[in-house]
């Protein structure tokens, strides 16, 4: 399971997904950072043999690396720690797969299907042939389709369409709440918006 260093400043996350990850500005680096303040080969990272920690080694960079603000030459990065590579800060992800967004867990071919459902001309709720609920939005049905069955039966999928403010007039977000089959009332699921419970 790759370890993710989440970017707190600009740039993308760093994935420690191979035996050794060299970070730097040089094209041959495994994780390239384009900033001029990052050295060509800035530091190297490996995953600890016994734990899920990351061992970081400075490769003689000009602007150095810091773990939780402390400048170090070599050090161990534990979940939750902050690593600075020159001026760029990263936080080591505490968990693993739980922290992935849904989009990151969906295989590419299913994502195509998802965008196809979204691009369909009908934005009204329609009955998809294999949808568990008759009046489910096609996009919601496509999402439900790729969820694990144990989860799909119990959750309510809300489709929120955000219109970019291109012509200035309408920058409102369209909120299309859709009710799914309430087969099992689950405490972790949010109640539908149609039943507001406000004790006067």
């Amino acid at each position, binding site marked *: 399971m790759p370890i993710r260093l989440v970017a707190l400043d600009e740039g993308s996350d760093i994935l420690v997904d*191979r*035996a*050794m990850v060299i970070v730097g500005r040089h094209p*041959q680096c495994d994780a390239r950072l384009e900033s001029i303040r990052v050295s060509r*080969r800035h530091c*190297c990272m490996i995953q600890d*043999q016994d734990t899920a920690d990351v061992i970081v080694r400075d*490769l*003689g960079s000009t602007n150095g690396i810091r773990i939780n603000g402390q400048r170090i030459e070599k050090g161990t990065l534990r979940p939750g720690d902050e690593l600075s590579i020159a001026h760029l800060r990263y936080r080591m992800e505490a968990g693993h797969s739980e922290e992935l967004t849904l989009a990151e867990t969906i295989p590419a071919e299913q994502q195509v299907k998802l965008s196809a459902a979204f691009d369909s001309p009908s934005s009204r709720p329609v009955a998809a042939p294999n949808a568990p609920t008759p009046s489910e939005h096609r996009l919601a049905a496509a999402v439900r389709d790729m969820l694990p069955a144990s989860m799909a039966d119990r959750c309510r999928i809300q489709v929120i369409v955000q219109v970019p403010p291109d012509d200035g007039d309408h920058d409102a977000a369209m909120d299309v709440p859709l009710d799914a089959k309430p087969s099992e009332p689950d405490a972790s699921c949010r109640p539908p918006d149609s039943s507001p419970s406000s004790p006067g």
Partner: protein
Amino acid sequence: MPPARLVPLVSGLIRPIPLERPVVLIGRHQECDAPVVHARISRRHCCVAQIAGGLVIRDLGSRNGVRVNGERIEEAALADGDEVAIGPIVYRLEWPQVSGDPRSAAQQSPDIIPGDLVPLDDDE
């Protein structure tokens, strides 16, 4: 696991390099874990890391490169007895194994060059 080390083939001024730490940075610069003072060795030449029970060597963009068993590499898994040339200096990896094959452990991680291993039919 007994510690691995790189022993120079030609003894003399060049010292063996112990590979006891998780990452060993090798080069001409003072701040390297294993400084090797030679004009044809880059300041930060390469590093050797202990990964998943195996050893992996990685060239750090050195001018004169790293060769494992004669083949120039960017990154490679190492096994006991491998000949590792760091620039002009040739070492042999001394890594007495208690049990198991270090390559098989290192190969599980992606993108490691497995060397010139050729599958052989040794059933008969």
